């Protein structure tokens, strides 16, 4: 079995996280922003899996299941919010939704 060095694995997770972050900062559509957040979540979950494998401990995998549950909840709430935002503003452009702006 081919083993990939652990540094490469971490680097992969890091790149995934950065991709998510950049997506979050660059995209203006709320749905895509939510997807970017999912990518960031998954990269964090990946780090847990890598760590679990590295030290042969099950804790990391347990943690990942937790993260999965939290993500599911987050998506449900996020999508509901996006739906409401769309009803209210008739747009998903996050820059147009700036009612909390001070003066």
């Amino acid at each position, binding site marked *: 079995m081919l083993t990939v060095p652990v540094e490469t694995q971490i680097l992969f997770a890091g790149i995934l996280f950065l991709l998510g*972050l950049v997506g*979050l*900062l660059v995209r*203006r559509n709320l749905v895509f922003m939510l997807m970017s957040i999912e990518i960031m979540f998954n990269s964090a979950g990946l780090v847990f899996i890598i760590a679990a494998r590295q030290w042969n401990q099950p804790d990391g995998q347990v943690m990942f299941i937790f993260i999965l549950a939290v993500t599911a909840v987050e998506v449900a709430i996020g999508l509901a919010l996006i739906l409401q935002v769309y009803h209210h503003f008739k747009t998903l452009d*996050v*820059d147009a*939704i*700036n*009612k*909390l*702006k*001070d*003066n």
Partner: protein
Amino acid sequence: MKSIIALIPALPLFSFLILVLFGGKLSRKVAGWVGAGSVGIAALLTVIVGIDLIQALPGVKSYSVVVWQWMHAGNLSANIAFSLDALSIVFCFVITFVGFLIHIYSIGFMAKDEGFTRFFAYMNLFVSSMLILVLADNILLMYLGWEGVGLCSYLLIGFWYKEPENGTAARKAFIITRIGDTAMIIGIFILFVSFGTFNIQEIMHLASTKWAIGSSIAVLTAALLLGGALGKSAQLPLQTWLPDAMAGPSPVSALIHAATMVTAGVYLIARTNVLFSLAPIVQTVIAVIGALTLLVAGFSALGQHDLKRILAYSTISQIGYMFLALGVGAYSGAIFHFMIHAFFKALLFLAAGVVIQVLDEEHDIFKMGGLRKKMPVVFLTFLIGSASLSALPLVTAGFYSKDAILWFAYSSNSGGMVLWLAGIVGAFLTALYSFRMIFITFYGKIKTEPSFNAGRFMTVPLIILAVLSVLGGFIELPASLGNIHLFSDLVNNTLPAVAIRNVEHMEWLFQILSSLIALSGIYLAYRWYYLKPPYMESFRKSRLNHFFEKGFEFDKLYQLVVVKPVVWLAEVDKKDFFDLLNISIAKLAIRMNLILSIAQNGKLRWYLLSFAIGIALILTIMMKQ
């Protein structure tokens, strides 16, 4: 039996609470009957306990009942305690009985008004406060009632609050009476500091033993209390609020600004008469102010064209008579005139309310006319009220009450020719402006058609008050005409009898004179306002008439002497050092806020970037360690 006294003010207060808390859930019918019924029961209780007291007099001077201790700190203590004596029984009777009739009338008058329950709540609160005022056995509780009626007056003048000028009138009434009240509360403090008690009986007793006649402290205290009375009773120089107070609904004008609240000043002076007898100079001032007020207000009433403003000036003028009587020491005369005045002036205001309502809120008498045939009940009752007001000889109650005052103004120890002359000129003016109203409003051609007929709720109180305005006089007849003294015998249980100079034999001559004066006033009104000679039209446009209409331009004077300097001073003072300090603190806060709020730009991605940068910074710092 005694404990009933506490129920008299408690009942209207209770129904006020019901109307305020559950008013929204009650139907109009129920709300009206709760409001009127509580006052009706209070009137019934007043009669029961009053008869009981009158039978006990003069052996028992007063019934007192302590409800609970209000406050106690050091040597200051005040109770919620009521005391009913011959003076307060008269006031209680007028407040509850006339108040009840006015409440009944209001059920009809306010039937279509959206603030129906609010109106009855305020009216009940007023009746309760007024009863507390006259029943209080200590001067602090009396002051509570005094301010309570002031509050209700404010609320009810501004009852139709959607018109801004009604709010202005309400504030004017509140502020001007407050000037007098400030003087009064200082007077109360002086009394407390001097005697260490608030109880009126004790204060009067201690004052007569400790203070010398004419001593400066007695004069000062009496003058301060007089200030309160002048403000509340709309006497010179604090009379300008009452004509504007007519912005309120007509039942309010009848109850508060004619029958009861404005006579609170008369009550105060009668109640604390010992203090005023210790300050003869203040008592002379009262008589002079009364005489001046009745003349000024009488002339002003002649120039008005708003039906209710005529009655307002007439009220000021009639209270001037009461002050004149108080000033010459004829307390029973003042209280008698108060009672009769409450009957006929409430009647006149209620009748005027009907006229104004059926003519679709038309206040201008020159746009009325010929109403005699259209509304006979209102015409007859208004005629009786006006006859009583102008003291039509022998048949009306107003004749007996006013004649008594005129006679005492001349014959009492401190009276004299000048005061009598002022009174008699005032009587002439009264007859003139009363019948000016009658001839212009009810005779001549019809100018505005009545839109509907007044219901029974409104006409029955008018008839009852009209009967009282005629028969009420026969419980007190002068020595030359029947010599009945039921009323003065009653109130003299509490108040000192008037001291008469030795001129008794001339009384009938004065009566004939004042009768002739009243009749000639009515005749002149007939000549001027019924036959309408051409010179009257030119007089209406003259400057003198304008001067009368504006009430001797007191408003303009106060604007010039008081309001403008104060506003100018405030304007100048707006930029002194301390104001600048405060302003700069506020400005600094706003500036800082502007700087910080740049970050709060509402862009979600901007916040995210700040997040990311922040996390990167924190991580970097953690790595370094």
